[in-house]
């Protein structure tokens, strides 16, 4: 027997409204950069994930934020809308609360600095390292970018090598290139 969709959705909505969830998530299936999992906690956006493998992703969320993780599409409506606007070029900055409590302190400092890099601009790993007072930590900054829990929203795609090469991207270089072209940072 299957559970009727109406009943399933009604429970998910009630669960979101109950305030008992650690993380409400949904998978946005048809973005220009492929499927994206987005998760929000009561404090704000806590995950953006490319090509999500559901079970692995949910286990990670449960480990980082608590086991009460449930797919509740309406709970991520605002994130969905801002991303939609971004993908068609109508939004240049996100207006979302961010929940980085599962991210280590050094990473948070680097991500805060990253968040100041504006739409359509790029910076380098070395510059970011210098800005957080660790000029020789360019490689460590690369690791922070690679583990960025909120790609796109925290724009690690705007960080390139000192020689202007794209270098790397947690979501794959094709996506980095696509995002930079969208923003007009690449011709």
């Amino acid at each position, binding site marked *: 027997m299957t*559970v009727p969709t109406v*009943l399933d959705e009604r*429970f998910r909505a009630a669960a979101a409204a109950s305030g008992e969830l650690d993380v409400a998530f949904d998978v946005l299936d048809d973005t220009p950069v492929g499927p994206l999992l987005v998760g929000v906690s009561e404090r704000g956006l806590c995950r953006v994930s490319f090509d999500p493998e559901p079970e692995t992703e*949910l*286990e990670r969320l449960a480990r980082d934020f608590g*086991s*009460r993780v449930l797919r509740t599409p309406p709970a991520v409506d605002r994130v969905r809308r801002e991303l939609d606007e971004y993908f068609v070029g109508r939004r240049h900055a996100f207006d979302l609360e961010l929940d980085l409590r599962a991210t280590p302190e050094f990473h948070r400092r680097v991500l805060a600095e990253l968040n100041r890099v504006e739409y359509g601009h790029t910076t380098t790993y070395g510059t970011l390292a210098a800005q957080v007072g660790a000029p020789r930590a360019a490689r460590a900054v690369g690791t922070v970018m690679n583990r960025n829990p909120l790609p796109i929203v925290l724009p690690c795609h705007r960080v390139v090598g000192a020689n202007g090469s794209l270098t790397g991207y947690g979501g794959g270089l094709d996506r980095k290139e696509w995002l930079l072209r969208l923003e007009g940072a690449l011709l």
Partner: protein
Amino acid sequence: MARTRIPPFELFYECHKAEVLAFLRRRAGRDRADDLFQETFLHALRAYGRLEHGEHLRAWVLMIAGNAVIDAARRERPTAELAVEPAGEDERPAVEELAPLTDGLPPKERAAVVLRYGYDLDYDEIGAALGSNEQAARQAASAGVRRLRKEKEQR
């Protein structure tokens, strides 16, 4: 030995929702089952953060569903009739009577007895709920009943 980890609620819900709904429809009828379904999983969600391990989650959620059925019946029926469930076709003991009696049983036997005689589950369902099989469920239930008889004789 490490205990079974608690799965993310999404996986727990997806894994058990169909069985819970089927159970509620059998026990409370199609009309009431929808409301009880939501009540059951909201209750489970509230309690989920306090779970200490992920064992027997199936039996756990069926217990919650069974309690939701009883609570709903209690809300609907006048208190005078509460003490005894309507006599079943084979005079099954009511869950309300059974629960306190079985408090002293080992957890597996208690679950088997309550699910069999209180909630009318088949042994293969109970086996599945306990993460074992039909045979083991049958043994656990009869061991539980034997233990209860013995206790009664000693009293």
